[in-house]
Structures are given as C-alpha cells and as structure tokens.
C-alpha cells in the first residue's frame, strides 16, 4: 500500500519555544519502494517518521496509509494502526533485553491480542529469511550489532505491515554491516511490496535505495542536496 503525506505541517512546543518541525511536507511512497531521507540532526527527519508512524498528529495536512486516513485517529486507533499496518526498525535495533530473538517476534501478535505460540512458525521463517536461523534462542545481549538489527527487521515484518519506517538503522554498524542491513531492507521491501521510509545519516548506503530525499529545517526536497554533506558525489545520481 502507498504511504501518502499531503502538505503536512508539524509545529512542536508553544509560545516562544514553538518550532516548525515539518514545513508543508508532501511525500508519496509506493508499495515496493525504499526511499531514504537524509539530513542533519534536528532537520525534522524523526518528526517525519513520527507523523508517518502514527506517533504524532500533524498540525495540518493529511496522512494516509493506502486509503486509510490516520490524521485524526484517536490515540487508541493509532495504537491499533501501529500494531496492524506499520513495521518499525529502530536505531540500535531497540530489542527487549529479556526476550530471545524468537520471542521478540512473537511479542508482536501478543500485542495485537493473538496467541504468540501460534506465530512461532512465522517468526522462525522470518528469522531464517534474515539469516538468523541459528540464533533463535539468543537474547540481545548475546547478539552482535548486525545480528540485532536483522532481528529488528524481521520483527518489523512480523505483522505483515503496509509500511516500514526505519530510524537510523545502520548508525551502530560498520560500513560492511550497514550495507548488508540496507540490502536486506531493500530486498524485503521489494519482495513483500512494502512502502519503506529509511531515515539515515549514512550516505554510504544510499546506492541501495530507490529514491533519496533531503530534509533541512523541516522542508523536504528531492535528491541529495548540499545540506546533507555527501561524502561521495557519485551518489548524486539516484538509482
């Protein structure tokens, strides 16, 4: 399904402290498409994910997943939307320390009120798909950074989401691991026909994404601009 942000503005704080985190942002990500949003800290990248991920309500504009408009949904409905339609991949994976790799995935149906034991086969299958078949019973403390992020991606796929939102998924990884992770994300996006938005600082992985956007002062522009301080000029050509 398509993720659509239509003329979205987000203002945070109030009075003199008010900042415009998103300034009339419009973005359409089609199913099967992986886009990257780059930009410096504080440019509004995380706000973009928060609004697209039903964590924050925009001040104005519309947010749609497929045909479902989630702009005005209640907190309860937003929680349900996240459980049903959205997969999150967090920075440093953000796994629960007490759960094994398999249980990290089984938690997702439990949150939605389904029996986690029934989801065991699907969780095993997904972890196998991301190359974690040998690590099902390990807790995050005994996994490497790259392995943790693989589990994070498998977890994001667990609810068969319409969109995946990845927040700096490679920030804790070296160049080689970063490439592996983004390649995995791209593969799953294409084969499962998910609309994926990846926010990143890491310009070395941009050769793997379908489109690149740059965020600066809350405004979103197509392509890689000077604001993102590219390290390789060759990356200016998308695709």
């Amino acid at each position: 399904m398509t993720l659509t942000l239509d003329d979205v503005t987000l203002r945070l704080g109030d009075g003199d402290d008010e900042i415009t985190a998103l300034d009339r942002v419009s973005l359409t990500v089609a199913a099967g498409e992986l886009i990257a949003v780059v930009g410096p800290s504080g440019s509004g990248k995380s706000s973009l994910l928060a609004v697209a991920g039903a964590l924050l309500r925009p001040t104005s504009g519309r947010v749609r997943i497929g045909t479902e408009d989630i702009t005005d949904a209640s907190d309860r409905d937003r929680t349900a939307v996240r459980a049903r339609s959205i997969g999150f991949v967090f920075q440093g994976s953000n796994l629960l320390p007490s759960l094994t790799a398999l249980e990290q995935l089984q938690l997702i149906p439990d949150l939605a009120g389904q029996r986690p034991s029934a989801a065991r086969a699907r969780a095993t299958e997904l972890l196998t798909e991301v190359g974690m078949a040998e690590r099902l019973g390990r807790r995050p403390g005994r996994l490497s950074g790259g392995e943790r992020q693989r589990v994070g991606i498998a977890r994001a796929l667990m609810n068969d989401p319409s969109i995946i939102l990845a927040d700096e998924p490679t920030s804790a990884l070296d160049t080689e691991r970063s490439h592996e992770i983004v390649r995995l994300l791209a593969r799953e996006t294409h084969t499962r026909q998910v609309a994926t938005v990846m926010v990143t600082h890491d310009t070395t992985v941009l050769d793997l994404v379908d489109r690149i956007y740059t965020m600066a002062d809350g405004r979103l522009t197509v392509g890689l601009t000077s604001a993102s301080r590219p390290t390789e000029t060759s990356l200016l050509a998308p695709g």
Partner: protein
Amino acid sequence: MFIAFRDLWFARGRFALMGAVVAMLALLMVLLTGLSSGLVEDNISGVRSLPATNLSFNAESGVNFSRSTVERSQWEQLAQRPGITHAAPLGNSLFNAQAYHDPAAADTGRQEILADGKSHTKGTAVDVAMFGVEPGSFIAPAPTQGQALGSSPAGVLISQGLVKKGVQVGDHIVLDRVGTDVTVIGVTGKDNYGHVPVIYAPLALWQEATFGPPGGATVAPVNPSVFNLATLIASDVSPDADLAAIDQQLGLTTVTRPASFSGSPGYKEETGTLVMIEFFLYVIAAFLVGAFFMVWTIQRKQEIGLVKALGGSTAYVLKDALGQAVIILVGATAVGVLVGCLFGFVVPAGAPFALEAGPVLLAAFLVVAMGIVGATLSIRRITKVDPLIALNGAR
C-alpha cells in the same frame, strides 16, 4: 504477561531480592500474629471459654475485672428478667500460692502464714487466677479428670497450666497472705487469665479467700455479708432482651463477652502495641514494594515506550506490569507464611504463641494488598510514557 514472565526470569536476581524482603515481612507478620493470638490466649482464654454471651459488671466500676463487685440481689434479679436465659455470679481474683504434694507440709505452710504472714515451708510457687463459680451453675466447668466442682467445700479444679508445673489431683494449694488451703479435686481445660492458669473454686470458697479474714472461718468468724459478693455476673442473653433498661434498673454495665476482654489488666496495652507494629509493617510493605516498582518502572521507561510504539496499548503494558507485581507478591508472601507456620511448630511449649488460620490469612492478604497498592501507585506512571521516545530523534 508475555514480557512480565520473561522479565521475572531475566532479572531474577533483583526480583529474588525484592521477593526475599517481602517474604521476610510476611514471616514477621505471621510471627506477630502468632504472638498476638498467643498473648490473647494467655491473657483471657479463661474468659473467652466461658459459655456465656454477656458479662455484667458493676455500673460504677464499668468493664474492669479487678475493680467490679456485684451483689447477690443483682444476680438474683438479673436471672428473673425477660430475655435472660441464665445468669450466674463469677468471682475473679489473682493469688500467689504454694502447691504441696504433702498435706502435712501444706498445713505447716498455712500455719506459718497465719503466724507471721509468710510461708517458710516452700512447695511449688504458683500464680493462679481463682474463678469462683456456683457449683451446678451454667458456667461451672466440667472436669476432664477427677471430681466435679462442689463435691467438697474446699475442692478446686485446676487448668492444664498448673498440671504442667507438676500440680496433681490430691495436692494442696495454700494461698499466700490469706492462708486459705484448697485441695485439687480435678482438672479442666487450658484456661488462663492474666497470663496465669485458672483454678475454679466454689463461689463460697472464693468469697472467703477474697473477702474473709486470713485463715478464714478456721481462725475467726467470717462476716456473712461477704457471701453475697462476686466480681461480675455471667449471663446468657437472648437478642430481644432490653439490656439498657435492665442495666439501668440493676446498676450494672453489661457487655458482650468479647467486649469484656479490654477490662482485663494489660489486655488493651498488649494488643494495642502489636496492632501498632502490624499497622506500621503494612505501611512499610506498601512503601517498600512501591519503591521497588518505582525504580523498576523508571528503568524500563525506554522499553515501555518501545512496546507502545510497536502497537502495545497502555492497558497491555499496565496489565503486564501489575501481573508481574501480583506474582512476586503472592509468591513471596506464600513463602513467608509457610516459613512462619513451620516456625509455629518448633516454638517452645509455654511461649505465648498460637497460629490461627483466620488472622494468618488476613495478614497474608493484607501484605499482598498493601504491596499491590504500592506497586499500582508506582506502575501508574506507565500511562504517561510516550511511545515517541522509541524514536532516536525524540529522545
């Protein structure tokens, strides 16, 4: 409870520590409860075991065993009143005494008391609470061994506490100061009063020992008016009796048997002290568990935000956390109560310690309940955790 169980195992060291403290608290509560019941037993079991619904004291003294005196006219009239099924006088006095196996030694001891107020021939020193009852009245105890009360004028029934001290049927007990010599003719029950064993005497014997001259009728004539006195009146009252009017007319203060306990010396102070200690322990339980779950919840703030971002509702996270608190509280309390009950079996005989199911279960319930109150107040902050903190830029 998907996460709660796994957290319990993952952080088992921390939870074990916390559980151990709760278990020790529960153990302490059981021991205090046992001590409380034991002290009550030791203090007023003689009153508690009376087959009477109500006790009437002199209106002027109020509910006070050591000060009340009632007269024959009062108990005779009370028995006639509508709604009063039975009414019988009860005398109640504490004595120091010497118990002798040898009647000759008892007589020597008695003579010494009458000569200079002190016995030099020692038997077994015993403290006794003498209950004077009219033989054949509804409160007269049935002997478990020996003869019934009243079969001889100076014959008394003793309770188990004296048997444990070596006093037997046939022994003589000489009351200090008044020199009254009584003979043990039987044994009944385990009654105590004022932390000393009860001896049941015919009312006339009690009246002579309490109000008569030293040595009693053997030495000097006893003023016949003492035979019209008792401490209080035990009665069986039906619910339709107008006790207020009867009290007014006869100059009595009538209370239910349990309400009379506070008239026993030291009863209020003993139970009050224990109740205060227990009260503070329950408050401590709430704060202790509250503090633990406060720290635990703050530590988990990031994880709670993550679970909410992944689609977990606030109700889901709350249920998870509270369920965890209940498991640890119930488990730890059960361990503490079990250890406390085991302790109850090894406590030395004679120590004032009695475990009763009711108070122990109540204590266990209150430890769990107060723990849940504390945990709930701390866990409440889960509702305020914003799922947004799961995102890097929002941290």
